[in-house]
């Protein structure tokens, strides 16, 4: 099934995320990613990603649009937007040689080492979801102790394309 992205502009009121996630739970859809940020106007922008076929995605759009705190729903085509995710990685205690090897691996993938103390390395990695998945998988459970991920944020390129 195709990945769908909704960019939902809504009032920043208590329970708005709960409201949003409930619509998807009720239709037996698992939300792959949900992030929220506050716009300069004070409205909240929720970015939702989920998988659904065309008719269900269309229905979900109408359901979200109907929600009282929702001001606008933009259905975003993944190809016409820039999607990024940030992951913070913490390794297990490593030997010095292994640590440098891991650091190189992370930097090669476009990441940045933030701290190396007591044989533990902390790094940040940003990029497309699949790329982050690949790096995490490569490092594996043997190396990684903890991973914190932001969920996916994106911005549409629509207007750039039109201009």
């Amino acid at each position, binding site marked *: 099934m195709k990945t769908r992205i909704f960019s939902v502009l809504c009032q920043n009121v208590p*329970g708005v995320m709960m409201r949003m996630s*409930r619509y998807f739970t009720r239709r037996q859809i698992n939300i792959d990613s949900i992030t929220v940020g506050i716009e300069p106007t004070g409205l909240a922008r929720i970015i939702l990603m989920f998988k659904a076929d065309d008719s269900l995605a269309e229905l979900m759009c109408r359901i979200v*649009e109907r929600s009282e705190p929702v001001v606008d729903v933009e259905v975003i085509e993944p190809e016409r937007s820039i999607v990024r995710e940030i992951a913070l990685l913490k390794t297990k205690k490593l030997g010095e040689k292994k640590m440098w090897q891991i650091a190189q691996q992370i930097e090669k993938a476009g990441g940045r080492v933030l701290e190396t103390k007591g044989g533990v390395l902390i790094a940040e990695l940003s990029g497309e979801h699949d790329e982050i998945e690949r790096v995490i998988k490569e490092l594996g459970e043997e190396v990684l102790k903890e991973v914190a991920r932001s969920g996916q944020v994106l911005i549409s390129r629509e207007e750039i394309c039109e201009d």
Partner: protein
Amino acid sequence: MVELTGSKALLEALKAEDVKHIFGIPGGAAIPIYDALYDEHEIHHILTRHEQGAAHAADGYARALGKPGVCMTTSGPGATNLTTGILNAYMDSSPVVAISGQVPTTTLGTDAFQEADMLSVMLPVTKHNFIIHKIEELPSVVRLAFKTAITGRPGPVHIDLPKNVQVNKADLKIPATIKYEKKIKLDPSTEDVRKAVHMLADAEQPVIYAGGGIVWSEASAELVELAELLEAPVTTSLLGKGTIPENHPLALGMLGMHGRMVANLAVTGCDVLLGVGVRFSDRATGDVRHFAQRAKIIHIDIDPVEIGKSVRVDLPIIGDAKRSLAAIIQGLRAHVKRGRTSRWLQRIKKLHEELAPRMDYDEVPIKPQRAIKDIMGVLGDDAIVVTEVGQCQMWAGHFCQIKKPRHFISSGGLGTMGFGFPAAMGVKVACPNCEVVNIAGDGSFLMNSQELATVVENKIDVVSCIFNNGYLGMVKQWQDMFFQKRRSAVNLGKSPDFVKLAEAYGAWGDRVTRPSEIAPKLKEALRCGKPAVLDIVIDPDEHVLPMVPAGGRLDAPILT
């Protein structure tokens, strides 16, 4: 700006909404509001005996009057007791504004006495809900709640009001109006109307399927005008009963599982089906693969989420029912050819005559069909029929001829047993000059019979006709038909004596065992000057027939 407590500001905002009645029960976290009510003369509070009763009463009030009904409770159990009634209002698109007290904001989340997380509890059962954290928000939130409840597709709204907000004071101004930010599409697009006009003008076997949306948009006149212009028969949903007078030559009666056979066959055989303000409930459509399978379906609704939710739609029209029908009528006048549907109408007329349900039974125990016939014979066209849920409701839906919108009030979507009696109470408060009759089953009536105290104390003279068969009849019917007559947990026995129960509360009560007694006793009940209970002992083996089994085809009902 004047300095007001939150409670006083709440009442001022309610008065700005022209609220005359509140159904409710006080409690610890609502005492400041009730203290303010003590000095209030413009708003009449009716003390129910259970919060569910308050919610259903507000719902009945709203449906009868066409404007929001209000219920009020304390926090915790008072508020959670509202939920069934509020969900009932949500499923049937009824504008109820529910207000409950809450523990002070300073103790929210601490499992304080009678604390319930009502924002979360009410979220899936309301059109929208609020918690007011700051007194400054109160006036605009209350006004927005009413606007939300009644705008577009109506629905219930809940306001959670913490106790410290009720007692705090602030310089407040009740806004004269409030802007509703949500965009509602009222006017259908011209292109959609043009397409609909062509589809309808070409139809030789059209059917119109009318629902509760017609009631709320006050489009009955347009519905009848369109039906007559098109020469198209009209069937309705349960909540659409009365949108076309059911004695009109083009009226087919209710559609669905327990609908009229002629309606079910007409929908199955039609070439264009125009659904207006309906949600194509599974109880109305049966098997959707065979529902109106020859027809092109046009669906008019104000709520875009309803389009294509259950059945395939060839032409969706988003818009207000009244405006959409008016636009279609205007377009059709130039296109429609008179007599185009005459063969179809002849066929329908023949079916109508052949399939006319029999009601003139003289047997003892009384047949429910006969009871409905005699009840309707006594009631005038202005009487409002309210129903409980189950067999009694389906007999009423099938047999009662309702001639006006808002004159048949029933729990459709949720099928809430215990709805009818408190709802009838709300209806009578809204329309004190109308006869209000609750067609009840013995099982349903007992689920909120405590409201007998409320109607007696407040002199709300409703008549409950209890179709007493000693069973949870609809479950028994399913067990008889689909579970080899294994009647599990459906026998209610002979308790209570409903006449004595009524009398114990100070109401009028009497029992009817013979058909000839129904009309005279009902007349007596309507004139006794008290709330009344008529215990009609009916045949316990009677089923609601015909019946389309759940998920079955509308044209293949069980007949016996």
